[in-house]
């Protein structure tokens, strides 16, 4: 076994933080080459197809950006929570909670003019996502029940609830037996922003929220409190910071962002709720956040990048016969590479030679 020790670096370089994600992506793509070779095709050719599939045409770019929309929002959800070391792995469930809220309020119960209806849907979606997280925060605070497990388990509960509602009371009678919800009323549908594509207003909203969260975290006292709680909760508590209040704000913001991802998918992309609304956007959000170094503006870039991998891999799997699960492998390896880079940014490896 190689013997080594990690020593904390004295001066941490800003530029290393910027370069690290790119190196992580590069290594992930390099490792994934082996899997493409297993499929018996050329890795370079496959990556070319992936690139064309995600950025090669006006329609491909629009598709990538519309896929990035929920990823940016769930990425923000993970970033805010992880900054406070609050391990919200429940963005998937919160996304569906937001989608349920849109279906409840947006399919005829409340009718407002478009200019009010769309913000209203984002609001109810965010509130639903945040409220789903609230009892779990209280369980953590008062009963010390680990939020990792409860948020993960809640995902399954919410998706089963969606399944029940779509097959039962909320099933659209016009859907010919297919389990889907009623359509969002015209005033609530997020309009296209590029003609003849699926890119909708939700993308602008996701960027707007990334900037808003960035301002909140970097300019507002709450941002400082979140960082302090994440760094050392007991020290934060001793120095008089309102830890519970901070975690509650974190939970509402984080759950809210994930809830709004449900809004963009229901009111933007599809127009109605389905059981396969999210192919794991909640979990992928963790990868988005990690790749961005938990930086809200970085989330925009990493969300678009991961979306391009998913969209491009679909195209690649059609033309090259490489299973599209390659995208998930690339994303997973990227997360692990980012983790290594985080360690190497903070510490330097000192080889010790054999000590025994």
């Amino acid at each position: 076994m190689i013997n080594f020790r990690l020593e904390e670096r004295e001066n941490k370089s800003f530029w290393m933080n910027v370069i690290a994600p790119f190196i992580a992506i590069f290594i992930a793509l390099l490792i994934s080459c082996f899997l493409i070779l297993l499929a018996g095709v050329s890795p370079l050719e496959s990556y070319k197809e992936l690139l064309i599939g995600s950025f090669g045409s006006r329609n491909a770019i629009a598709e990538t950006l519309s896929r990035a929309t929920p990823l940016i929002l769930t990425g923000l959800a993970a970033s805010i929570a992880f900054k406070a070391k609050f391990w919200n792995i429940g963005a998937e469930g919160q996304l569906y909670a937001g989608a349920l809220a849109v279906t409840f309020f947006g399919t005829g119960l409340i009718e407002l003019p478009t200019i009010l209806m769309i913000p209203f849907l984002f609001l109810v979606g965010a509130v639903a996502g945040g409220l789903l997280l609230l009892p779990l925060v209280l369980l953590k605070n008062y009963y010390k029940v680990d939020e990792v497990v409860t948020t993960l388990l809640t995902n399954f509960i919410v998706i089963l609830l969606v399944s029940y509602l779509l097959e039962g009371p909320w099933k659209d009678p016009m859907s010919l037996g297919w389990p889907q919800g009623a359509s969002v009323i015209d005033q609530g549908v997020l309009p296209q922003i590029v003609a003849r594509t699926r890119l909708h207003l939700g993308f602008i909203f996701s960027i707007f929220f990334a900037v808003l969260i960035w301002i909140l975290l970097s300019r507002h006292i709450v941002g400082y409190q979140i960082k302090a709680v994440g760094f050392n909760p007991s020290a934060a508590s001793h120095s008089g910071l309102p830890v519970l209040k901070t975690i509650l704000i974190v939970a509402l913001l984080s759950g809210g962002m994930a809830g709004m991802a449900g809004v963009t998918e229901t009111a933007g992309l599809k127009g109605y709720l389905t059981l396969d609304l999210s192919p794991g956007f909640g979990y992928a959000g963790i990868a988005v956040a990690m790749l961005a170094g938990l930086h809200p503006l970085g989330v925009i870039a990493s969300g678009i990048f991961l979306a391009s991998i998913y969209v491009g891999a679909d195209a690649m799997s059609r033309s090259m016969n490489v299973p599209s699960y390659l995208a998930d492998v690339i994303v997973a390896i990227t997360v692990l590479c980012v983790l290594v880079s985080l360690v190497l940014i903070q510490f330097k490896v000192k080889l010790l030679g054999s000590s025994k």
Partner: protein
Amino acid sequence: MIFDFIEILFTAGFWAATIRIACPLIFATLGEVICERSGVLNLGIEGIMSLGAMVGWMSVYLGADLYSGVLLAAIIGALFGFLHAIFTVYLGASQHVTGIGITMLASSIGFFSFRLILPSSTTPPKIIPFEKINIPYLSDIPFIGEALFQHTPFTYIAFISVIIIFWLLNSTPFGLSIKMAGENPMALEAQGIDVLLVRTVSVIIGSALMAVGGAYLTMSAFDAFYFGMINGRGWIAIALVIFAAWKPERALLGAILFAGLDAYQVRAQQLAGAFIPYQFFLMLPFILSIVAMIVASKRTRYPKALLIPFRRGERH
């Protein structure tokens, strides 16, 4: 009507199903117990179970015998455990994020390889799984025989592994090292024992058990591999570890209790399905896991060094 619900408990089929449902949870919970006892949270569990289910099944599908299939599943689990250990033990990276990353990697590699080998199978192909073995004499006992002694060898292995892990943790020097690595790694280091190595070996053994738990699903409980067939069992196992207070014997108890409720809900569903939608029955395991954690919360005492990376020559 109410008697029908009570009658379920007096059918041998219910108890046999309970044992069957408990097995993957037993393997997975034991595996997580070993990891956490040594101080490492392993959220790779869900993905490692999925990959184990795929590898065990695929090996048999491609011609290996059943026991080699289980062994291969264990080896692939051990490999991913080693990867988890490199990140969390040697590099000291976040155990939460690494675990999620390992789950993403293990399950996606499993799905990728499955599709690569079987590009277009709409109906999943089947293998001949482990067959039931009637234990001589014992299986003839009325009721108890059918409930407990007419299972596949894989099922008996699950119960034997509880005994082995119990013995390992409580009666061997290595078991003591595992527990010290999770409670007081400084003291372990002071005795000249390599904390990082103890943790690494623990995570490898634990992850192998998780993969075997996944393989039980495709090789004993069912005979095919489905995407998403683990369906949260790994996360439930993590809740069971807390409920079991990190003890193997209580992990067995928790898994059986849990499986019993699951087996019961399937049967109650047939009786009450007309009144209560099936989704609410399917929610029960997840709700119960959360309830179990709340119930256990009063006496929950995490291993002291859980989540804390150990760095040589550093004071904690």
